[in-house]
């Protein structure tokens, strides 16, 4: 279903307290015309799912800086499907591993975990918003 103002959920997942990035991202999404449900930092996976159900969301843009995202999102895609959110786009960005490592590893890892797009540290949010529009269009949601 095409929407004028697609709804997106933002927040940092698990017990990640790094709120600044998701705040900046949320404001940029809002400035770009999205309807943003901003869950803020320290958001348990279940809350993301609940919010998406309640608002009929089109995408979740999840942040994680603290390095432990992998443990936080295990089984998350499956739970989304169970909750009837199989069609909701899943993006993740931030610093996705602990310590020096190759970002390409993250991409492989998080795609396998069910994410549609994976963003490197300090990702350009305007480019990400373009990606989001393209993906929504491809799904005839924009």
């Amino acid at each position, binding site marked *: 279903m095409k929407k004028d103002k697609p709804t997106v959920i933002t927040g940092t997942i698990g017990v990640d307290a790094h709120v600044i990035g998701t705040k900046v991202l949320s404001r940029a999404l809002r400035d770009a015309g999205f309807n943003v449900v901003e869950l803020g930092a320290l958001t348990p996976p279940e809350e993301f799912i609940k919010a998406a159900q309640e608002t009929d969301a089109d995408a979740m843009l999840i942040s994680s800086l603290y390095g432990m995202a992998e443990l936080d999102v295990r089984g998350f895609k499956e739970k989304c499907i169970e909750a009837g959110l199989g069609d909701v786009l899943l993006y993740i960005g931030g610093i996705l591993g602990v310590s020096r*490592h190759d970002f390409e590893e993250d991409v492989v890892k998080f795609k396998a975990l069910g994410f549609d797009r994976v963003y490197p540290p300090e990702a350009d949010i305007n480019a990400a918003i373009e990606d989001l529009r393209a993906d929504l269009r491809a799904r005839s949601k924009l």
Partner: protein
Amino acid sequence: MIKVKQKKMDEEQFFERRKAVLSLWHTGKEVDLEEAVAYQKSMPENKNFCKVIQKLKKEGKSVVFPRAGTPLVEDEIELVRALYDAGVPLLPCTTDSYTRHLQFEKVEQALEESIKSGRPKLNGFPIINHGVKNTRRVVESCGAAFNPRTSRLSNSLVGEIAFASGMTAQPCSFFPWFGSYDKTATLEECIDTAQYLARLMGWYAEQGVILTSDLHGWLPNGVFPISINVATMIIEGLVVAEQGVKSVLPLVECQGHLAQDIAAIRVTPQLLRRYLDRFGYQDVIIPGTAAQQVPLYAFPRDLGGAFGYVTYTCFVGALGKAEVVSPRSIDEGIGVPTKEAHVDTYRAANWILNVVRTQNIEFDNEEIQTESKILEAEVTAILEAVLNLGGGDIVVGAIKAVDAGVLDSPFPLNIHARDQVLGVRDSQGACRYVEFGNLPIPEEIKDFHREKVTAREKAEGRKMDYYVAIDDFWAISKGALVGTPRQ
């Protein structure tokens, strides 16, 4: 109704609360207070945070206080030894995020996975899961004095285990929890938690063991003048002093503008002393001052920029004659630092600290004088407003002040903060207010900020607003002090 007050907890109440703290995880049982005091007293002076800093002050030296923690005990021992050998006599023990949220089962699982995969799966040292016996092995593995870092939920139990293990300092800083770590806790809850640890440190002090509480204040989550941070740090100092803490270490956030940072390094301990004395805590020691690289700005991700920022902070700290300087590691923008990254960082830091302090450089100028006056005036105005709100009770005042926006800071994580203030840099890189919210800043000082902001507005031909604040936030990671529009 505000229940928490500025009043020393009576011993009975303290020991009652203690039961709940120790029962959070089975290692709580390992803590035996009597034995812990004996253990503490058996340690040499170089293991005591307060004494190490007092000695540095006397000798006119600066040392690095880093940030470090890795999940497995053996790795942690290797890490602290490497740091100590690189010339670091004060060591942290940074806990991981699961510990910080009392998710001890998850910690167990992550420890196992760390062993299996050979890679750290936690972003710090889970001191609670490891318990007293294991942690003592870390403390005893080198000659440094230790100070654990954690956040609100786990603060009390971390302290119990840390002090029993021979660590001799720990922050009881409730404002960072409120502003940066804890989404839903009220300031009242945060103060209540901090009072417990302060009371525990007070108990140790009564037995003759001086433990130090470093004071952090409300972290400016972005480019923001430092006065709220300093005022709240002093509030923390008063609160812990009331609970019997006998040594407090102000931790000054260096934001990159030399005159402002040096002013803050000088003025903060003076103001802290003044307020401690005013409320009768003359016997509380301020062993020295710590200057730290503000832990908030996005860090350069390239090796050169990272070393630039690290060493710069060390110059500023050394020029300011801070006894303790805490740079981030060169891996800050990348992930939890490797042991090598730590060592390289602190070698560079020590090079600077040593070379600069040897020269005993006197540094003063008009800007430092001005920034000192502004800072003193702002902090005083804020603290008086807080005391007024509390009818003389600093705790009550602080709680009301947050509600009223008399204490406020940008980009807070906590849902109870007002979030009506904003800062940007002026053209020379000093942090200025653009949105004052309800902060009780005197009018003539507001004018000073406005002038500086207008000057930059003119120079750059753009409005100083939220977007500029974001540009400024990224500047340091891009090799500049003042932000330029991001393409």
